[in-house]
């Protein structure tokens, strides 16, 4: 099996007016292709911090992250950005859609950045919106969508460039139980279709569906 993601001895410290906060204290994690990993743990245990490091949004104070063999800390910003665009999909707790763009345009955005021709990206956006069950809402702005719908648009956007791995930080955190279940069903389907998933969550339901559960406490992985 191919190792999609390989993190070793990650530490992340934040300097705060004199004192120092350590968010991660030596975390190692490997994710194989097709795996569905759930990261759980109490608030403040460093889950989000780990995810930002895995996705190359932030760099570790020490340790290393490699995606498909490419070490992130060795990459210049331009290449790192390109890698995020091509290989990584992000889903955030608060959706983070662009309010001035429609659902379809939000999904098209990463493809436009890749240089996909307008016709092709339009077709793919329609296909993805249909996949997440929003075929009829493509012309709507985020403000005209519910939380669950926004999160599904965000998932479609994350999938646009066929990433090697999808990272999600509490994707159901802002949603009610029923809507959260719909999103989890979508993840299950993605997993079944072969997408590699790493999901940070408080949601115990995820743990029953994931192929592996990683528990964190106080900046460390506990087993």
């Amino acid at each position, binding site marked *: 099996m191919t190792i999609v993601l390989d993190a070793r001895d990650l530490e992340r410290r934040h300097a705060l007016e004199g004192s120092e906060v350590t968010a991660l204290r030596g975390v190692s994690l490997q994710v194989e292709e097709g795996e569905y990993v759930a990261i759980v743990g109490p608030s403040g245990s460093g889950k989000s911090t780990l995810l*930002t490091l895995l996705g190359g949004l932030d760099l570790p104070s020490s340790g290393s992250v490699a995606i498909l063999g490419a070490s992130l800390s060795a990459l210049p910003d331009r290449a790192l950005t390109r890698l995020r665009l091509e290989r990584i999909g992000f889903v955030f707790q608060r959706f983070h859609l662009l309010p*001035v763009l429609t659902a379809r345009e939000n999904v098209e955005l990463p493809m436009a950045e890749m240089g996909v021709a307008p016709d092709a990206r339009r077709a793919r956006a329609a296909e993805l919106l249909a996949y997440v069950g929003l075929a009829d809402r493509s012309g709507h702005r985020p403000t005209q969508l519910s939380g669950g719908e926004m999160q599904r648009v965000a998932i479609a956007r994350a999938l646009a460039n066929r990433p090697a791995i999808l990272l999600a930080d509490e994707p159901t955190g802002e949603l009610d139980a029923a809507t959260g279940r719909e999103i989890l069903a979508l993840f299950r389907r993605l997993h079944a279709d072969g997408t590699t998933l790493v999901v940070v969550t408080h949601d115990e339901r995820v743990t029953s569906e994931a192929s592996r559960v990683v528990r964190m406490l106080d900046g460390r992985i506990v087993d």
Partner: protein
Amino acid sequence: MMTWRWAIRDLLRHPTRSALSLLGVAVAAALLLDMVMLSGGIERSFGELLRSRGYQLRISPLGTLPFDTEATLGDVTALTVALRRDPAVREVAPVLGSTMQGAHGAIAASLVTYGVTPTSQGIYTLESGRDLTATDTVGILLSVPAATRLGAAVGDTVSLRGRLDPQMANAGAERRVLVRGIVRFLYDAREQPSVAVALAAAQRLGGPDLTDRASVLMVRIDEASDLTAVTARLRAAHADVAVNSIDDLVAQFRLRLTYFRQLSLILGSISLVVTVLLVGTLLAITVNERSGEIATLRAIGVARMNIARQVLVQGLLLSVLGGAAGMVLGLGTARWLDAILTSFPGLPAAISFFVAEPAPLAIAAATLLLTGVLAGLPSAWRAASTPIAAALRSDAP
């Protein structure tokens, strides 16, 4: 990246704010345009006026500019002959300016009188009636204000009285003359009552003091000859008179207009500063507000360059749209300001202070656009270097 679509929609997100900024940029652009038009306008329009009839040189009494004082040139016949002897000189047109008393029936008015040689003159164009002929000593041409003031029309008989002589308590020579035509005097001020007569007649009316004298000689030289060389040659040959090319006159005129050039420079710079502040502040605040959005874009893999470009495009949009509105506004205000300034007493009516010339306008427009983009640079830089993880974390719900 769908840069333009995003930039435009983002500006439309806060319509009042964007509209006000646009309006601000428009007023600043209008001011800039006006100042660019003012800075070179009067010089250009003065140069055009001087060049309009194709006489490239002016000869006036030493130490004076044409028609600037009442000093006159003597021995004009001899001077004209001498000038014509230069191979480059095509035509010499003497003009004698003085004041005369005109009367038509019971109406009398003081008239500015130009004595000219009708066959070669560069100071009027015929509006109606006919021009004077070379031998016509009883014909005159009136400007519209003169005709109106005297109530005279083409074909009427008018009497002209030359220089008044208080000692003798008489008005010197008086002549009955015929109005041949109505003309427009190129160098006349608005509403200036003027009359043109044959040079000899003007000299006679002026009495013994003006015998064989003229105020200015307008000289036309061969197009093919070198103007600077001819000017220098004539200067050397006639050291007792002032020989000025149009460029010399414009340069002299320029000195008197220093004030307007400085004013236009200062106000033009202020309008650019206002543009920078407006566009800069607006973009800084927008970028601040959107730091979460920008971080998201960076997270999903949008390149720094594209983020910066989007901010710069917004600055460009503001200055293009504001600038376009400002051009319209500026042309309107330029008319208004021109109407004020051209009411300077004695200024030729043909002169404008605000002249719209393509090159300066293009420079103004380019400066404005560049300013808009430059004003966006700090914000673009800040947007491009947004720390992704921190901005996502602190983004408001």
